[in-house]
């Protein structure tokens, strides 16, 4: 099953490349001229592409184990191919990680908290653009990252990522209603 997913991923990648400019017009809502705005995401795409190629030869050897800790405290451990972002991995495994902008560094909804600072330190520093988005992330911590910018690599094997819990109260400040 897992190897089928990675094959699927590679096929999609090939299709996307083959389709090239064809897909850039009107294939999906509002995406016509995206590439110009996606400089930071683009460089990451290239690295993803390179390691996916690598995957083709080594099959499912290059995978790491990633544990997501959900809002309710339950855990899901999944196997993630090297080169894949945590956002894509979460979506392929039905983990409730939002991805409003689908990895284009324009929102903060795929915010994850790296639970072990040692793992956090293994990551490249966030770019200014990622930090701009983290500014707006809900429940930001010292080891917060965007899931779309954390790419699986062998050193991260066993990493634990927590989804921030929704605890902020939007209610009227200090107001206590009488029970009805």
């Amino acid at each position: 099953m897992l190897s089928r997913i990675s094959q699927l991923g590679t096929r999609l990648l090939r299709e996307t490349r083959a389709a090239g400019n064809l897909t850039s017009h009107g294939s999906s809502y509002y995406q016509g001229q995206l590439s110009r705005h996606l400089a930071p995401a683009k460089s990451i795409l290239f690295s993803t592409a390179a390691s996916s190629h690598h995957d083709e030869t080594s099959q499912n050897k290059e995978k790491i184990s990633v544990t997501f800790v959900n809002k309710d405290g339950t855990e899901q451990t999944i196997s993630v191919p090297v080169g894949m972002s945590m956002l894509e991995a979460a979506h392929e495994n039905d983990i409730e990680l939002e991805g409003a902008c689908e990895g284009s560094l324009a929102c903060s909804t795929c915010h994850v908290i790296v639970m072990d600072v040692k793992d956090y330190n293994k990551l490249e520093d966030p770019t200014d653009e990622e930090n701009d988005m983290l500014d707006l992330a809900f429940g930001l911590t010292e080891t917060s990252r965007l899931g779309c910018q954390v790419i699986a690599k062998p050193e991260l094997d066993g990493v634990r990522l927590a989804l921030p819990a929704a605890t902020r109260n939007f209610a009227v400040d200090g107001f206590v209603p009488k029970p009805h």
Partner: protein
Amino acid sequence: MGRGVLLPRARRLMLFLRPTSFSTSASAASTREPLHVCVVGSGPAGFYTAEKMLKGHEGVQVDIIDRLPTPFGLVRSGVAPDHPETKIVVNQFSRVAANARCSFFGNVTLGSDVSLSELRRTYDVVVLAYGAESDRSFGIPGEDLRGIHSAREFVWWYNGHPDMYNLAPDLRSTESAVVLGQGNVALDVARILLRCTTELASTDIAGYALDALRSSTIKKVFLVGRRGPVQAACTAKELREILGLKNVHVCIKEADLVTSPADKEEMTNSRIKRRVYELLSKAATVHQEKSNDDRKELHFVFFRKPTRFLPSEDGSTVGAVELEKTLLKDDEVTGKQVAVGTGDFEELKCGLVLKSIGYKSLPIEGLPFDKYRGVVPNLRGRILSSESETAKVEPGLYVVGWLKRGPTGIVATNLHCAEETVASILEDDKKGVVRASSDSKRPGRRGLLEILEQKNTRYVPFNDWEKIDAKEKTLGQLNNKPREKITTWDELLKVANEE
């Protein structure tokens, strides 16, 4: 191409291969009468609410109504045309609309096509998510002069909102525009005025707006804030973008960057304030060579509040804004630093003023409303009968988004806001307080359709919006744009009704 293209393709396939809870749960719940939910407003707050309801309750049927024939609220009419990546979220919203347990009814106005009391009789749960369609005002002399618009009007205009396509702001009689406010909306309108039109030409900006901007004579934009750079309400992302515009000379007075101990404390407590301030300081110290080229100018004007709008020679168009210099003082009640006037005035000449000091929600009949705060009084999304301490919870009536918490935050803020409101709904449903007793079941969608038929309202379902969507994309291709927005009510409804 960026990942934005790769992911939706991948996800569509995934949905196809492995049906999610979305498509399977409808049948599981068929044994019981569905929980009928109506969401009023199809912006991010409305769609996130619908999505969370569908995920959280197997037996729910969600109808989303919107007064426009087009869905997605401010993602369509608020997000700037040069921010296409922010609009990608409509892919997710469209998947919600495609759910068998969810329906969209465009061109249905709460208040005229259907009243709030009718909705409450028809649905077990009504969630108001209609946002903020008006503006705060200064209430100072001269505010009615020609050439003064709210930023919302200007944004709706360049985004092709059918209520504002005929705004026709005059961009050809002046060299200077003043934007009052320094939040992200202020930065958006300033950026649209300053950005090269060759760059805007490949966005989904309204065609007439692009034409008007092409012949614009505006060379200088002044962004005016009552307080200092530490208190600027914008985010680092928007600021970084405008500071990096091609062919724009950024002017920030270094004297304005001096910080007080209170400022420093604000920055220590807020990562975003610290980063915004750092960006402004950096921009101020980069001494750009001011050559005699045709570069436009962006001026940050801090510590000034408008006190009067002054007419130009013709007497009816704005010619200048009178500004009073301000100082920051600690407000004992809120603990925040507030701007107080110094009695020292100056005039800033301009021919266009965009007021960007906040959106304002509008009340509707039968809805409790806090006029002072411009929101519906609520407790975690449950609407309360008033702001007073003796308020009762209005059963089955909920609020989300800007109408709930005021007009601030980004698209994603609505995600958490919707989670909170949906948690309240699910809790109340479990307690059995939202459903009517079995002998007076509410009809839900069937009831809405009857009301709309009686009123002779021709609603626009989601697949008719898809006709508009397809037509706009086709028109866009001709102009090398992602879409060419249809901007009049007549044309939108005509395309929606085409066979």
